[in-house]
């Protein structure tokens, strides 16, 4: 059951809706034909959970990370609630094996710990 989250823009307002369709192109056509809003993003739902994990405060608040590939493309993000027992080196390793920048492996990783 492909479910899509659609972000629409109407003037200064941003609207988020969920619609079910076979393909994101059908979602685009649906809004193009009926709506006056601009479709700015479509995301396909892969997983959703409703449970809430208890907050015991035992984590590093966040780590701001910039990663770059060998073509100098970069990506930046803030990783929240980082495990205390993960070393700086292990974090680098898992970023390199798990993430990509413009489909390429990151070669430079810059981190700022927000304690």
């Amino acid at each position, binding site marked *: 059951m492909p479910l899509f989250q659609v972000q629409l823009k109407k003037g200064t307002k941003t609207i988020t809706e969920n619609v079910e369709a076979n393909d994101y192109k059908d979602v685009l056509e649906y809004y193009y034909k009926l709506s006056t809003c601009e479709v700015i*993003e479509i995301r396909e739902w892969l997983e959703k959970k409703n449970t809430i994990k208890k907050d015991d405060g035992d984590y590093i608040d966040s780590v701001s990370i910039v990663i770059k590939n060998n073509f100098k493309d970069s990506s930046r993000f803030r990783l929240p609630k980082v495990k205390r027992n993960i070393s700086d080196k292990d974090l680098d390793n898992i970023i390199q094996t798990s993430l990509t920048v413009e489909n390429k492996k990151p070669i430079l990783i810059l981190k700022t710990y927000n304690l």
Partner: protein
Amino acid sequence: MLFHLTLKQGHRSDTLYLESSSETKIKNFIKAVSTADLISLKKVVYSKKFGIAYQVTNFIESKKHNEELEVIVESKNFVDLINIKYSKKDLTKDTIVKTIKKYLLLNNEPILTIISIEEKHIDEGVSPNGGK
């Protein structure tokens, strides 16, 4: 592939975009580095901001619109309500019916019947052409 993630622990939610070659790698990455739960994971399939499948168009925003249409739809086994915010002003009932039936699904079933179309708020006090 670009993914949109929401992490949650306690009351606070954090949302971020990460790029990876697979869904499994993203899940394993979060599990390994964060104490927060991955409560929603989505794949970005179209994006103006990130240039994913986006085709530059001269989008002209129409100021003439209906505030919101409420459409009750029915498939073989289900009934649901679809809200269309800021729909085009000049839509006919036939266009709405055909478009919904052609492009949307309801619990993986084709939409067979449009039970009703109603307008919640009306701009300038005018009903859509053919609207109920």
